[in-house]
């Protein structure tokens, strides 16, 4: 797509606003007392779902570029990654502030007993350095190591999946859908990687 600078800026603003919509809808439901019998759970799960969805969207952009041969998907990679981080932060914030009511006592008791919470915290820790180094400045400064560092997102995709599987009581339908999506997205990278190394050896 050969669009001008202005058109891309406009498209980016639209995508940005669209990405904020789930947040706006949940906040609006909250203000109108529409979050159901367990509002904290609705917010907590809502933000968690969207964190995982944006992680998947972010992971899909490079494969889309590979398949279509077009460069435009990469323009949205940072924004999607940062939205994943944004929703993951809200997810964590709801847990700490609303579910645990900022009680250190509750944190000490509940977190170690829950492998899935530990896995969620690990996922968040993996995302923090990626968000922190997401600026163009940091990208330039870190050079090749920036690329290496940002491969952590693959690990975050996997730990997020484990986090989801471990918290489910019985019905694995939803985490399975994400597992298939993430497997395809990471699998495509493995295929590309294998093809590249095969080419190197054949030369």
């Amino acid at each position, binding site marked *: 797509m050969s669009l001008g600078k202005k058109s891309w800026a406009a498209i980016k603003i639209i995508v940005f606003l669209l990405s904020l919509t789930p947040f706006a809808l949940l906040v609006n439901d909250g203000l109108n007392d529409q979050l159901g019998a367990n509002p904290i759970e609705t917010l907590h799960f809502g933000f968690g779902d969207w964190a995982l969805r944006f992680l998947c969207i972010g992971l899909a952009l490079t494969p889309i570029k590979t398949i279509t041969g077009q460069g435009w998907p990469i323009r949205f990679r940072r924004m999607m990654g940062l939205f994943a981080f944004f929703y993951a932060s809200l997810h964590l914030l709801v847990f700490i502030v609303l579910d645990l009511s900022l009680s250190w006592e509750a944190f000490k008791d509940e977190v170690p007993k829950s492998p899935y919470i530990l896995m969620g915290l690990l996922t968040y820790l993996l995302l923090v350095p990626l968000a922190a180094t997401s600026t163009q400045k940091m990208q330039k400064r870190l050079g090749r190591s920036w690329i290496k560092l940002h491969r952590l997102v693959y690990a975050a995709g996997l730990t997020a999946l484990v986090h989801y599987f471990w918290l489910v009581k019985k*019905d694995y339908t939803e985490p399975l859908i994400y597992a298939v999506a993430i497997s395809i997205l990471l699998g495509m990278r493995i295929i590309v990687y294998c093809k590249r190394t095969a080419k190197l050896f054949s030369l």
Partner: protein
Amino acid sequence: MLIKTKSNILSSEITDRAVFESRREFIKTATALSAGFMLPSPGQAATGKYADAPVGPYSAKLQVTDREDVANYTNYYEFSTNKTDSTVLAKALKTAPWTVEVTGEVEKPGVYNLEDILKDNPVQERIYRFRCVEAWSMVVPWIGFPLGDMLKRFKPTSKAKFVEFTTLNNPEIMVGQRSGVLDWPYVEGLRIDEAMHPLTMMVTGMYGDELPNQNGAPLRLIVPWKYGFKSIKAIVKIRFTETMPETAWHKSAPGEYGFYANVNPEVPHPRWSQSRERVLGGSIFTPKRETEKFNGYGEEVAALYSGMDLKQYF
């Protein structure tokens, strides 16, 4: 100085006398309507089928959860694993006529009409805490009768050491049963002394009215000191047995859900703490409540388990 000699009030602005005189009626109706719609009043609804049910023993004076929350947050996997979808899906269930098959170690086995069971067992209201294994809880005014009173009429034999309950199996209506999320039909069980305990209830209603389908109509169990999954819904079969029945959740994950399933903050679920519970209906800034052993009914039921290691028999 401005002196108005003529009235400014148009005749069309003057309230018709008949309307004026009926204003009290209007206010009354409006108040009644808003009260009916806006405050799903805790406790008994004035017009429900069981509005006059007397308050039974063990009923606690607790802040009752809004009926809307209780009716729209149910774990009813026979319909859906989603707690609100079951409200809509369960509407398809026909709850009358309804029969309960009584079998096993009893002198009077048979297929009993629910109507006849209800004739023999006058209902009462009891406000109980309800604690789910998922660490949330609510307070519900149940309408029902002691399970023990009902069971004694069937004359259990001396071999009856346990009671097993089975939920209706009908995948055509209970669409959740088309998936293998649990091994259908849902089965639960109690030791005979637990079943005969005066706290244990057979429930046919809540909030002074009939039980909504999604809450287990027309007949469900309530065992207030155990996690909610023990309180089986839409019961069609009661079997008295000599051996401990295999129950649905235990079968599905024996390491996570035991036969006893007594509420116990000291025994965490393998994947989460049970020390606290989210009481539904609070503000989002209300902290969780400290879970009580036996859900606060220890004085009544702790003796049933004296000498038992509750960590082993969870």
